[in-house]
């Protein structure tokens, strides 16, 4: 039997004003795959992830998530997005931010369960501090915990390694591997080619809004100037 398709994009176009951010992007991702999306700054990675997460609409084309049209059928609860913005409430504590998500989704919002989640991202000792006292890296960890709190089947992570320290890099690696074991379909947008190659089985390369490569990460072309020398990939 053919593997189920978790994410299907067909002819996606999206523009911002006069500029096209996505041009005719089509691909399919089988369920359970771990896929990296790469490309230079402004090549459309963030736009692609936001379109897939239904945060923004495509101007043309069709997104299918787990066989459903997310604009019409209830499939949003199975998608989680880690975006450039953290989706956190600054004046609230780490624990309260997670509790809000848990309550909206009808999940266990007791302190013990939420603390476990914070433990996972190494923030248990700051559980009762407001987010506005957090550093950028700590916010990223909390945003990651917020995404994990959704327990989604399709997880879209936009630069999950952003702002993180070397232990944070390892944390993201662990999270990705765990998501894969649980059978989630994961798409990460990242500039860390070596790391992405090691972790992911498939890769997508965007160039000025167009998909220039889709296939196994081992066959992925080196983008010009990205020979690894300029990329500090941490621990």
């Amino acid at each position, binding site marked *: 039997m053919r593997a189920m398709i978790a994410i299907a994009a*067909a*002819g996606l*176009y999206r*523009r911002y*004003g*006069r*500029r*096209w951010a996505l*041009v*005719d992007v*089509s691909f399919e991702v089988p369920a359970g795959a771990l896929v990296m999306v790469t490309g230079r700054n402004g090549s459309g990675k963030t736009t692609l992830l936001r379109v897939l997460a239904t945060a923004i609409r495509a*101007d*043309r*084309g*069709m997104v299918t998530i787990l066989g459903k049209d997310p604009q019409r059928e209830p499939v949003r609860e199975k998608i989680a997005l880690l975006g450039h913005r953290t989706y956190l409430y600054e004046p609230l504590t780490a624990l309260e931010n997670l509790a809000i998500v848990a309550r909206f989704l009808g999940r266990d919002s007791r302190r013990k369960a939420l603390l476990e989640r914070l433990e996972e991202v190494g923030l248990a000792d700051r559980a009762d501090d407001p987010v506005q006292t957090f550093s950028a890296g700590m916010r990223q960890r909390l945003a990651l915990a917020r995404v994990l709190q959704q327990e989604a089947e399709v997880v879209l992570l936009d630069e999950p390694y952003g702002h993180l320290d070397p232990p944070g890099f390892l944390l993201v690696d662990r999270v990705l591997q765990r998501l894969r074991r649980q059978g989630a379909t994961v798409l990460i947008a990242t500039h860390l080619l070596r790391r992405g190659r090691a972790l992911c089985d498939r890769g997508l390369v965007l160039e000025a809004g167009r998909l220039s490569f889709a296939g196994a990460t081992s066959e992925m072309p080196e983008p010009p100037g990205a020979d690894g020398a300029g990329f500090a990939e941490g621990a």
Partner: protein
Amino acid sequence: MARVAHNRTPHALVAAGVALLLAGSYWGLLKAPREIFMGDVQRIMYVHVPTAWNAMLALSFAFVCAVCFLFTNAWKWDNRLEAAMEMGVVLSLLLCTQGAIWAKPTWGVWWDWDPRLTTTAVMVFAFGGILALRAFVDDPVKRAVWSAVACIVAFADVPIVYFSVKWWNSLHQAQSSPQTVSRAFHWPLRINAFGILFLWTGLVALRARVAALRLQSEIHPPVPEQKSAPAGAPVPGGA
């Protein structure tokens, strides 16, 4: 790419409107007899009342456009909404000015908090505020949806504003209304009413074209290499 129609109907409407207005004003100013109680000042009514009808009509059309936009998401309704709202604000502003000019010789003050006139003034600010909102939102989709919503909410507010001002100012003397004038006074009123109607429909049609052209330059750059764009996809633009 949607082409903006180049037909001349709006120009013809504007020309017809101007001609009717000239004829109606000639009749109203020079041929119609003096009114018994109001004297010559009554002649302001031949232009004031038609303006009032048409201001309300233009804002009602804006409301219809807003509802149509929210149901269809078609850009033409957004273009028409922008045009009709602007026209409605201009006509309402004109109405307030005429009302002030009418109030001075009649009641001795420029502004007397008459419910109809006060409601019109509130509408100028309400719909003028929405036009300001449009100017400050760069994303065309958000601009269209928000102004349609704001237009519906403001329109729903009109009767409440009217009744609240009416009760608030209930000691005010009864207003003379055009229904009380004799048949001889009807013709200039009607001719001017149709004159303004033709004028504003023509102007709104033209203004909607302006909006369509601006929208096209804003959000409709040519699709790079239109090789596999699916057919039937929504294309913005159009008057």
